[in-house]
């Protein structure tokens, strides 16, 4: 009896020693990544103090003059800032709306197709632009939309005057939104196609026996079937209201279309890295980050409430 007890304590000692060793290895595995995050995420976060300083480039950060909220007060007085925020929200909202409606409709159309090879070919083609960079796609857009490009050629057939699309404030936002649709709609359908294949086929069989038409089946089975996915992605996209797409706009815009196409991110870039106004640019960026994180928190909360979604 005593021996058994002794053995029991001996084994427990072994296990806890082994546990400690295991824990050490867990920490060891995490350490390189945490170091990277510390240097390239946490330390830059400390640089946020620049938002409250009058930063003179070249001087050490702790020697800069503290000016409290002056950068934020000054920011609100910049005449362009209202337009920049408006452009950002407008472009981002248009992209969000188009980015939900078009993939849903496309997935529904694709779902109706029974021919396997046809479906796969169409998918292969429409997913492709997603993997290209905006540098490449903007280069292509510039070719297509130039004065002697294909769009103006076709418009010319109908007797229209050539338009410089990328220099036109009436066209620029449309170009941004529709070229984003071109790049992303195919990829956006994947989630909906997955949801569509998840619908129980016996529902369709039952509907068939009851003599339901295709439209009725769409209305009463298919749409309700993918509704949770639509709701989930809509709520999650709320977090993107301030993300109008830096890479895309940076590669498509020019000074002529600043009034319709300049967004917060491009503005911060020019303010900070071109005009070297570090303090002011950091302040604008910080304000955007804070609002964005609030939006993301709200969207995740909503997603959890309506769709029972958690990231981990």
């Amino acid at each position, binding site marked *: 009896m005593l021996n058994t007890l002794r053995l029991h304590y001996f084994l427990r000692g072994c296990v806890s020693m082994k546990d400690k060793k295991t824990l050490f290895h*867990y920490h060891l595995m995490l350490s390189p990544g945490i170091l990277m995050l510390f240097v390239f995420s946490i330390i830059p976060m400390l640089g946020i103090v620049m938002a409250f300083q009058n930063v003179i480039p070249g001087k050490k950060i702790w020697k800069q003059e503290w000016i409290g909220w002056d950068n934020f007060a000054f920011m609100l007085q910049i005449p362009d800032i209202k337009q920049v925020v408006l452009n950002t929200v407008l472009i981002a909202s248009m992209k969000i709306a188009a980015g939900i409606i078009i993939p849903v409709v496309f997935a529904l159309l694709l779902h109706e197709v029974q021919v396997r090879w046809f479906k796969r070919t169409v998918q292969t083609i429409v997913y492709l632009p997603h993997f290209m960079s905006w540098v490449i796609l903007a280069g292509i857009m510039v070719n297509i939309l130039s004065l002697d490009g294909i769009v103006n050629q076709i418009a010319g057939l109908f007797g229209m005057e050539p338009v410089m699309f990328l220099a036109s404030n009436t066209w620029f936002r449309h170009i941004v939104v529709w070229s984003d649709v071109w790049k992303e709609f195919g990829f956006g359908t994947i989630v909906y196609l997955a949801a569509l294949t998840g619908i129980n086929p016996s529902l369709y069989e039952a509907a068939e026996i009851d003599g339901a038409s295709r439209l009725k089946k769409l209305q009463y089975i298919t749409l309700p079937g993918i509704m949770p996915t639509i709701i989930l992605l809509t709520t999650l996209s709320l977090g993107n209201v301030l993300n109008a797409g830096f890479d895309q706009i940076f590669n498509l815009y020019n000074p002529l279309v600043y009034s319709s196409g300049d967004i917060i991110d491009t503005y911060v870039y020019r303010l900070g890295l071109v005009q070297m106004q570090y303090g002011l640019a950091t302040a604008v960026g910080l304000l955007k980050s804070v609002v964005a994180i609030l939006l993301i928190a709200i969207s995740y909360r909503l997603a959890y409430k309506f769709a029972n979604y958690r990231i981990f």
Partner: protein
Amino acid sequence: MVRSRTLTSQLADGIILLVLVIIALTSLYPLWYTIALSFSDQAAANAGQVTIWPSGFNLTSYRIILDDEKFFRAFGVSIKRVLIGGALNFLLTVIMAYPLSRSAKQFPGRNIYMWLLVFCMLFSGGLIPLYITITTLGMQNTIWSLVLPGAVPIFNVILIMNFFRSLPKELDEAAVVDGAGPWYSLLRIYIPLSVPAMATVTLFSIVGHWNSFFDGLIYMSKPQNYPLQTYIQQLVVNITPDLMKEMTTEQLIELMKASNKTLNAAKLMVAMIPILLIYPFLQRYFVHGIVLGSVKE
């Protein structure tokens, strides 16, 4: 009754097919137009004669690229970046996802790490503080400024962590009873079981590295250190008078021979080739990868 229903149904099928074909062709056309442009004669391209087929077929643009040292240097920087950056992303994803996939009971402290990761994913100091950090560390004009700041792909870590959690616990328990340590069970049990998931996130990080241009633009002050996308961004999107001043007369004549338009189209095509090469693999895995995101308990 039944017959008429099948008739309208067939008509509907036909319309759907037609709409899909039109959409697919529209979304392919811009790429096709660029191919046609890249093989066209400069005069024809400038006169707007290119529509579907190359007009005045020739290979001048591609020949100029073959002689363009700057292009190949930029291509080399991109390849280097993809190799180093992709390997780093893969390594860090795997070794971070494994300990994080343990429960908080098995690994006290796990939740602290987890919150740190999520905090870093959602919040950032912004462009300027990061820029100043990198320059203070003296990383400009080195490959490290392109691969280290994004070395931890937090989203991928969470994806793979969720995937590890979905694997049967009994496998790991059995290994522990047999005396396997954490490295052994990661290498011999978890990694072999999650090859498709790993392939997905690695392919995505390769595409991400190949496609990014902005870090190259702000951290590289010398054009010879530009990765390919930055090089193209500078040429195609911003043709500045400064750039034209830098060129020799010979280069300018050559440029006029192949017209910017066709040459740029050819450069865009060459920059697309690596993506097109891995596209079949991507396609095999990414549907799986997206569904992966929803793997949870």
